[in-house]
């Protein structure tokens, strides 16, 4: 019997009205593993991680973290559960009413009751790791460029050094060099903090750098799941089409 997986989704279903988005997702992520999820735009990758966080409620299925069922948690138990997670939203989702450093330090101040000064120090350190200097810390989120917002979102996601971190398209909108800085940061999170990460990306170069395992989501199911090194010999027509970015193949784009 192997170790219980850090995160395990089985048969997760989610639809919006009549539109079925997830139609039985099965996925396991081992402790300390970096999983990259790929898949076409609109296939439900973001919806999948929102289900894990309890922001969306799946109609069916089970989501286990450290072997414990998490669907339907509420109140204080949900709060404790969420302490394990860090999340970078695709849109960054920074709080407009707070300064950059207050955004990064939010979970420390509100969640962990850290003093503001101490939390500020941590925030500045995290901002430095995503390549942002202390002069940025005092700005409002509205004064940042898209790529800077993304990096602030990243700093906020790792601020509490959580056990499981979700990155929704961390390198989209960044220049190639900054993209690589972020890739390395994610690798460091896994290696140094021992975090389990699930990254959504369309950027295959980034996927190859950070992934131990890759999973591909298509039409509401995981159609392929395997080690990152095997991705070129997957023998799966969906994966082949996706990593080579071909318009022809089994994935028909709805135009």
């Amino acid at each position: 019997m192997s170790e219980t997986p850090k995160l395990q989704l089985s048969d997760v279903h989610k639809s919006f009205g009549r539109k079925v988005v997830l139609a039985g997702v099965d996925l396991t992520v081992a402790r300390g593993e970096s999983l990259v999820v790929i898949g076409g735009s609109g296939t439900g990758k973001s919806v999948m991680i929102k289900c894990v966080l309890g922001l969306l409620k799946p109609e069916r299925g089970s989501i286990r973290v450290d072997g414990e069922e998490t669907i339907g948690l509420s109140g204080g138990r949900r709060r404790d559960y969420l302490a394990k997670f860090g999340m970078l939203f695709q849109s960054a989702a920074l709080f407009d009413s707070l300064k950059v450093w207050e955004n990064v330090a939010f979970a420390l101040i509100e969640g962990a009751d850290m003093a503001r000064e101490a939390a500020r120090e941590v925030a500045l350190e995290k901002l430095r790791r995503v390549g942002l200097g202390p002069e940025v810390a005092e700005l409002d989120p509205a004064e940042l460029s898209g790529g800077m917002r993304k990096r602030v979102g990243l700093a906020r996601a790792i601020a509490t050094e959580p056990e499981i971190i979700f990155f929704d398209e961390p390198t989209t909108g960044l220049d190639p060099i900054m993209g690589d800085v972020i890739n390395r940061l994610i690798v460091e999170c896994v290696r140094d903090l021992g975090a389990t990460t699930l990254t959504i990306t369309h950027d295959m170069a980034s996927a190859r750098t950070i992934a131990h395992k890759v999973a591909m989501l298509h039409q509401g199911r995981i159609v392929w799941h395997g080690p990152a090194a095997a991705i070129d010999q997957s023998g799966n027509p969906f994966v082949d089409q996706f990593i080579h970015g071909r318009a022809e193949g089994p994935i028909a784009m709805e135009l």
Partner: protein
Amino acid sequence: MNPLAIVGRFFLAFLAAIGKLACFAGDAVWHCLVPPLYLRLVGRQMLAIGFYSLPVVGLTALFTGAVLALQIYIGSSRFNAESAVATIVVIGLTRELGPVLGGLMVGGRVGAAMAAELGTMRVTEQIDALITLRTDPLNYLVVPRLIAATLTMPLLVLVADIVGVFGGYMVAIHRLDFNAASYLKNTFEYLETMDVVSGLVKAAVFGFIIALMGCYHGFNSSGGAQGVGRATTNAVVSSLILILVANYIVTELFFAG
């Protein structure tokens, strides 16, 4: 299509909307009692709702008091009852026009701002982000607004009452040649505590309604910028109508008691 079915569907949708609002209100009030209470945010909202509404509410009250004095003078002079002007102005203001007009102005200003801010937070996933950062959005966003609006509106209306009486006084003295001392004496001589208190109770109720509708519509908005626009409109329209309905109900309660 069967017309009865259409009517039925609208009626059911209406009931569902009321039920949803009632649940939200209950939840929000319950969260006022559950810690944590973000006092700093309550303070910031009191400033935004109270202090920055002072000019609007003050000007509204000033001109309302002034016009009230003119109109009541016209009416009362028809049967030589000009001495009643001061009393009727102050009672009209404290019992009715101060809270209602103040409520309507604040409802437009603050209700719209709340719905737009919370709606934007909803559609840009900031509310989701709050949850993942282990902060209850009801405690963090809704409770401070509800408490601040309920506490601040009576203060605003008290100011409005004073400014309104001053408006009436200015017109009476300078335009209608009343004697200043006797106008003031008439203003306060027949004024009862209940006139003022009932107005302030109304104000608190209106403040609650404004914040509740602003938060409810903002919180439940969806669908991008258009959705936020719709939420803002709905928040303002519904809070203004509810203010007028609640005004009648509260007046009935005080009238009977």
